[in-house]
């Protein structure tokens, strides 16, 4: 197969990073990104983009750790280069605080982030309602810049990007050899995955440029993440909710919870409310599949279901998905060779 034609469905952080990785591992591939939404209208644009992993209950920890490590290493190199500001990648330090000491004091990712340690007594004084805390430095992907940077890299590699709503993967079988499904929440409709469910998150993006540190409650519900131009205040985790409309009561509640962690936020200006549906699953689906219909085969690589942890593992799952695309190509080449006999 001289130039395998690969379609990547989805243009959030997963779709774009997977497409980019495929152009790197398979330079002869012709890659096209198809999505009904592009930045700034993807779920990724709502996310804070922090590299703090979400733990997937059904994915082996070593695999999650590998994904995170690959992502962290990749972004670390970018953050340290002249491209950092264009790519929107930057280091940020801060605290994760717990109202009661967690069972697991050392999360699996503690040796991947920088300078991980328990907070000192003096630091905890700032959080009278919290007993225990962790301090560390991690990376952040600012969106839209990071997605726009990925799009730019893709275009430079000859990738085509089209706004198109794909209702059924079979629509693509005549134009493409392999389809990569990075449709996020869209995978529920696209491939009928009943294990995929939305976890609604509402966030506030505010102007508070004096906030240089992140603060996160270990319960994952309240967080303050400083971005390049705005600070993301969160949040909610509403399992099963599909509503994309901001809720005023929730806005008030998020603001109050964040102000109790960081009182200076009372002075925040220019509050923008955003909602995203985390495409959640017990385990991220990074998997090969060959769809079959009336004698026609369509190789598909799935890469979706990252829930609350998309940014944290995106490069790692992109690596795995690109590897699976490689396997699809080998399989196609093998069968086309056999077909010639």
């Amino acid at each position, binding site marked *: 197969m001289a130039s395998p034609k690969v379609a990547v469905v989805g243009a959030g952080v997963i779709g774009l990073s997977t497409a980019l990785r495929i152009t790197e591992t398979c330079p002869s591939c012709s890659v096209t990104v198809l999505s009904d939404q592009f930045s700034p209208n993807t779920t990724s644009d709502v996310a804070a983009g922090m590299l703090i992993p979400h733990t997937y209950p059904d994915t082996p920890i070593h695999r999650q750790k590998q994904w995170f490590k690959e992502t962290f290493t990749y972004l670390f190199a970018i953050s340290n280069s*002249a491209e950092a*500001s264009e790519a929107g990648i930057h280091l940020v330090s801060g605290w994760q605080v717990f109202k009661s000491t967690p069972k697991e004091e050392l999360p699996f990712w503690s040796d991947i982030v920088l300078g991980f340690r328990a907070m000192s007594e*003096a630091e905890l004084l700032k959080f009278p309602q919290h007993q225990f805390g962790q301090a560390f*430095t991690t990376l952040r992907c*600012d969106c839209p810049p990071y997605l726009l940077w990925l799009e730019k890299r893709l275009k430079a590699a000859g990738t085509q990007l089209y706004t198109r709503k794909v209702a059924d993967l079979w629509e693509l079988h005549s134009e493409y050899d392999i389809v990569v499904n990075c449709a996020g929440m869209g995978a529920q409709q696209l491939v009928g995955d009943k294990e995929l469910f939305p976890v609604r998150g509402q966030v506030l993006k505010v102007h508070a440029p*004096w906030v*240089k540190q992140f603060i996160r409650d270990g319960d994952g519900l309240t967080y303050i993440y400083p971005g390049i131009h705005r600070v993301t205040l969160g949040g909610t985790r509403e399992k099963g909710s599909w509503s994309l409309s901001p809720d005023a009561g929730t806005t008030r509640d998020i603001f109050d919870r964040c102000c109790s962690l960081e009182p200076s936020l009372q*002075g925040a200006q220019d509050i923008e409310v955003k909602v995203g549906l985390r495409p959640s699953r017990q385990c991220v689906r990074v998997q090969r599949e060959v769809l079959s219909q009336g004698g026609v085969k369509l190789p598909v690589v799935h890469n979706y279901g990252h829930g609350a942890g998309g940014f944290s593992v995106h490069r790692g799952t992109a690596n795995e998905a690109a590897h699976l695309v490689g396997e699809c190509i080998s399989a196609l080449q093998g069968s086309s060779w056999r077909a010639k006999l």
Partner: protein
Amino acid sequence: MRVAVIGAGVIGLSSALCIHEQFHGLVPSLELEVYADRFTPHTTSDGAAGLWQPYLSDHGNLQETLWNKETFDYLLGHMHSAAAKEMGLFLISGYNLFTEPVPDPSWKNIVLGFRNLTPKELELFPGYSYGWFNTALMLEGRSYLPWLTNRLTQRGVKFFHKKVESFQELFSQGVDVVLNCSGIRAGDLQPDPELQPGRGQIIKVLAPWVKHFIITHDLNSGIYSSPYIIPGSEFTVLGGIYQHGNWSEENSAKDHKSVWDSCCRLLPALQKAKIVAEWSGLRPARRSVRLERESIRLGNQQAEVIHNYGHGGFGITIHWGCAMAAARLFGNILQEKKQLSTPPGPRL
């Protein structure tokens, strides 16, 4: 009781506030006045990035270490108030980098979370093999000085825009006590060969993705003569110039290039940062801070001067401790003049 403060930088304004807070209730006749030829945003304090960080070594000057600590604790106590934003006060973490191991600084237990850098962190800074990470405070002059001015104005303190030529000038107008917070130009009021300019030049850029301070150290060339990057609430300050004895407040192209090149080497992402301003200032350097009383005989009167100047590149870092010490000296003066029956302090 007329008290005149000379100087409206961080030292003058904070000393004035500290004295007014402590004594206006006890001394009904207290009248406080601030005299300066430069006010915010034209003072030396306005040019400073505003990072709380003392020099590497206190040279055995424990008094200054205590004043630094007092300042840090005082500011940290304000972190939870709604005033923090208005004061220009916020927490910030960052890196101090060295080319060889160094002893821990006197302030390691004052700041939060002080620790050595890990090998992975040092990978970010080629050429540096050792360093510290800690969380400290920023107190931006361009917010703090107006905040102090507002507090003082609310309290009825009067401001006079004029250059005071001598202490005598004020005493002959009926001032009882002078607080000399004249910074680098204290020598104009009373010669002090120990006071020398430590000239600095900085470049202000827009680099909002920088969330940490990064301060490098060259043990051979001395403090602040090695690149540093300090992100503020709006601009990031790039610096690394310390020229002892240089009185020029003009920006030098050579210094600009030195700062720009060295900071971009330190943080390659800065190459894309937009330069918005350049500034030169004179750190009022002295072997130690001059914080002491001086009684001046004027005819049959005794006039009192409290000197509070010579804070070098650590004025913001040490200001409140010094203001409190100046206030204590003022209390002593009041006692001696029988204006106070007992020194102020906690009531038993």
